[in-house]
């Protein structure tokens, strides 16, 4: 990550003293600080407050209540196994796609991107129809083929939950490892084979140690995802009679709400994610291998020989589980009267579409709300992220390192926890945002800031400051340079950031589920509402609509960027 070395870059800006642009930078920094510190401050405050003054009683109850303890333990189990499963799927696929002559790599990358952007709760919902122990299509098929009594998979169970969550988490591991493998030159591996090492030996003793940090940090990333997830456990764990931390926090909001308990219960989750992220940073920071880091050197493709097609088949099998099967069953449910019955003419209907879009009065306003929030958040978020990344890259104000830290900090705040903090912060004067779209907007901007920031950061790293310096020499002010030189250069990067944030917003569920009011529902919340009432057809219709919107944005982004979403430049 730390490639910036040129000292020359920092000098002019340090020496320029105070200029008129300073207020802009300071305002941006303050806005960020407010966004993050206000909800977290309130969260901490509420977790220790009671009518009779400060107390640790809420923490006491959180750690002694057997039900909450169980939820805590379930979350640990879930996150750990999701991490491992994601590695088991993601690492081999990354290696195959980066270092071998696997056929159909473009298709695989494309599908990988599709599972990356699929909202996990939609996947979980689809898997209810695929692998419900009795009515699930796959289990019925299995019974018909084998005559067995017991189901092949029971999706309403811890292993089922781990499986489904891993299906939509492994792309993180894939990206992490594939991108690292792309950076490692083959010289060392070749040297080893010249010295007589077998293929396996090369892989284990040369390649593996070089990607080890990426593997570990991919694992941590997957664990973080699993910790923060709300939708999938709500859909798969609750019917099986168990909670995770996130669903438990949500349940604590039911009437009569126990906000203090929810706040106290949020803190361990917050600490766990912070700790994991710290660990990941350590691991990546220590990456001192000379071979990683440049794009120099050649990367030789390892021939798979007879294993080419079996390997391809393996990859496609995984992607079938995350894409083909779920999308297929969603499409079937959208067009049928009874999703569990065979697709016949009698079972065919367009009624679900009619009901969802024209009869169900929440749909239209939810779609409008979602689009409105998506656009607002993407514009403000991308703008703010660009400003912040610019400040940090050009070292424009004192304490810019702190700015980087703050911008990335929301990564450790799970959506549910952020929502609890925002709920407490904005349900009281002077800022009464609850009940308006603004509270969702604030939540989304905060939640998407790390993504936006890292995207913008990468953009500005790619723009050498010499052009800006030329502008300075010719007498232009910072703001004018930003507008006339930097912004045009950064345009495609900023558009990509915009798209990333937009996609993040339309799939957001875990914060929205706590912050919505009936007038401010978004699509994901409507889907969750429908789920609680068992309206499968309508959920399928809305789910497909959401996917269509997502893919439209992805296509737009790829057109603008001229490359694929995950960074491949074939």
């Amino acid at each position, binding site marked *: 990550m730390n490639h910036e070395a040129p000292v020359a870059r920092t000098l002019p800006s340090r020496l320029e003293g105070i200029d008129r642009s300073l207020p802009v930078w300071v305002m941006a920094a303050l806005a960020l600080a407010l966004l993050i510190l206000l909800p977290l401050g309130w969260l901490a405050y509420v977790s220790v407050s009671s009518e009779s003054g400060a107390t640790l009683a809420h923490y006491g109850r959180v750690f002694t209540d057997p039900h909450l303890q169980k939820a805590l333990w379930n979350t640990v189990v879930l996150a750990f196994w999701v991490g491992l499963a994601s590695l088991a799927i993601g690492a081999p696929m990354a290696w195959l796609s980066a270092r071998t002559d696997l056929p159909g790599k473009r298709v695989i990358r494309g599908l990988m991107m599709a599972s990356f952007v699929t909202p996990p709760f939609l996947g979980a919902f689809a898997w209810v129809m695929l692998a419900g122990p009795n009515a699930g299509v796959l289990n019925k098929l299995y019974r018909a083929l084998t005559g067995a009594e017991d189901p092949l998979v029971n999706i309403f169970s811890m292993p089922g939950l781990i499986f489904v969550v891993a299906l939509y988490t492994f792309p993180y591991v894939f990206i992490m490892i594939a991108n690292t493998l792309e950076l490692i030159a083959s010289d060392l591996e070749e040297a080893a084979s010249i010295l007589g090492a077998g293929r396996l030996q090369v892989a284990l003793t040369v390649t593996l140690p070089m990607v080890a940090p990426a593997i570990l940090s991919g694992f941590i990333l997957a664990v973080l995802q699993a910790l923060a997830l709300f939708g999938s456990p709500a859909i798969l764990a609750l019917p099986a009679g168990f909670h995770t931390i996130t669903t438990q926090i949500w349940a604590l909001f*039911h009437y009569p709400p126990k906000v203090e308990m929810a706040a106290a219960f949020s803190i361990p989750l917050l600490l766990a994610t912070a700790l994991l992220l710290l660990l990941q940073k350590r691991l990546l920071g220590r990456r001192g291998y000379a071979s990683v880091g440049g794009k120099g050197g050649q990367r030789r493709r390892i021939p798979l020989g007879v294993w080419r097609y079996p390997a391809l088949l393996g990859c496609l099998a995984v992607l079938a589980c995350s894409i083909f099967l779920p999308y297929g069953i969603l499409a079937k449910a959208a067009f049928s009267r*009874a999703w569990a019955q065979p697709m016949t003419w009698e079972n065919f209907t367009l009624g679900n579409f009619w009901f969802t879009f024209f009869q169900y009065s929440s749909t239209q306003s939810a779609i409008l709300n979602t689009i409105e929030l998506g656009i607002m958040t993407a514009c403000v978020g991308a703008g703010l992220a660009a400003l912040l990344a610019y400040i940090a890259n050009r070292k424009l104000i004192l304490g810019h390192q702190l700015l980087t830290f703050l911008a990335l900090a929301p990564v450790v705040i799970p959506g549910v926890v952020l929502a609890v903090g925002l709920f407490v912060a904005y349900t009281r004067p002077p800022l009464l945002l*609850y009940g308006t779209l603004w509270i969702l907007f604030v939540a989304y901007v905060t939640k998407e800031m790390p993504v936006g920031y890292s995207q913008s950061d990468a953009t500005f790293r790619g723009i050498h400051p010499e052009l800006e310096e030329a502008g300075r020499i010719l007498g232009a002010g910072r703001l004018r340079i930003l507008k006339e030189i930097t912004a045009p250069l950064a345009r495609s990067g900023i558009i990509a950031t915009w798209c990333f944030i937009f996609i993040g917003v339309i799939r957001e569920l875990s914060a929205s589920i706590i912050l919505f009011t009936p007038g401010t529902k978004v699509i994901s919340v409507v889907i969750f509402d429908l789920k609680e009432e068992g309206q499968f057809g309508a959920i399928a219709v809305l789910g497909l609509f959401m996917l269509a919107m997502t893919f439209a944005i992805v296509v737009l982004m790829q057109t603008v960027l001229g490359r694929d979403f995950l960074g491949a430049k074939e």
Partner: protein
Amino acid sequence: MAERRLLTIVMAISGAVVFAGPAFAQDARLEAARKEGKVVWYTSLALPSAEKVAKLFEAAYPGIKVEVHRTGSQRVLQRVMQELQANIKNADVLHTSDAGHFVLLKEKKLLMKYTPAGVEKFPPGFKDRDGYHYGLRATVSVIGYNPKVIPPAEAPKTWKDLLDPKWKGKMVTAHPGYSGIIATHVLALVNLHGWDYFKQLAQNKLMLVQSAVDPSGVVASGERPVAVNGGDYTFAQTKRKGNPIEIVYPKEGVPLIVSPTAITSFAPHPNTARLFTDFIFTREVQQVLADSEDLYTGHPEVKYPADKPKLHELKLLESDPDELERRTEEIRKRFVEFFGA
């Protein structure tokens, strides 16, 4: 055909409303409602039914909109309370299946006293003695099963039959922490068989869903062949759509759930709220609830489908709203303790 029926209903209703009472006062109220333009309805009535009632009202009073916010009874209460905490006054009319909610809301002075036209003929169980809330509809909680999977001869006949270990992994329950129907159901059965009943039931590893509407779908799909609770109307409706479902009215008695409706004391559209409340208690709308939604109502002139048992033929387990309100925390806590979530 369906449209013509709708038209007749609408005409009948608007006729009934317009010509009832002094025309002048009615006109003034209608004018005031028109100015308000809409009514916000927080309701736990199953989604398609709620949307249908809203469409009927909008057809009867063109230009006035009904904003339907449908969710589970407990979520309705949670929303209202959470909003009030943030000083948001959004809801005009509240309707849930947890009569205890209305005890609580009345106590907190959050309800407006209003007696809808025509409810004096309703049975006592549908009327609040202080005149704040009235039962819009009623249902009984029953057992449902899938006859394709379970031959009728082997189907459970009583609540106690469900404790048989042979049903292990084959049953589904809705959640009292979401549904008022189920909260009432649990209270009625606790009073009948004690908490031990639920403790034993939980040994059979039930699938947990949220809404009292959902078990019928789960049974129809075959995911679990037996539902241990759920409103009879949802089973009847699912069956009418051609799904394999049979309803069992257990001999020990069936919990009766009367779902009240009331106007809030802070209603932002009070005139429309009154107009709407009168509307949903007209014989025509109550008949719609009975015909197309298979619900029971308190209206004495409503006719029911021939194959639906009459309420007076059933042994009913009635619950006291005050007790429901008092024990709501206990019900949820113990249910979670036994069933896990």
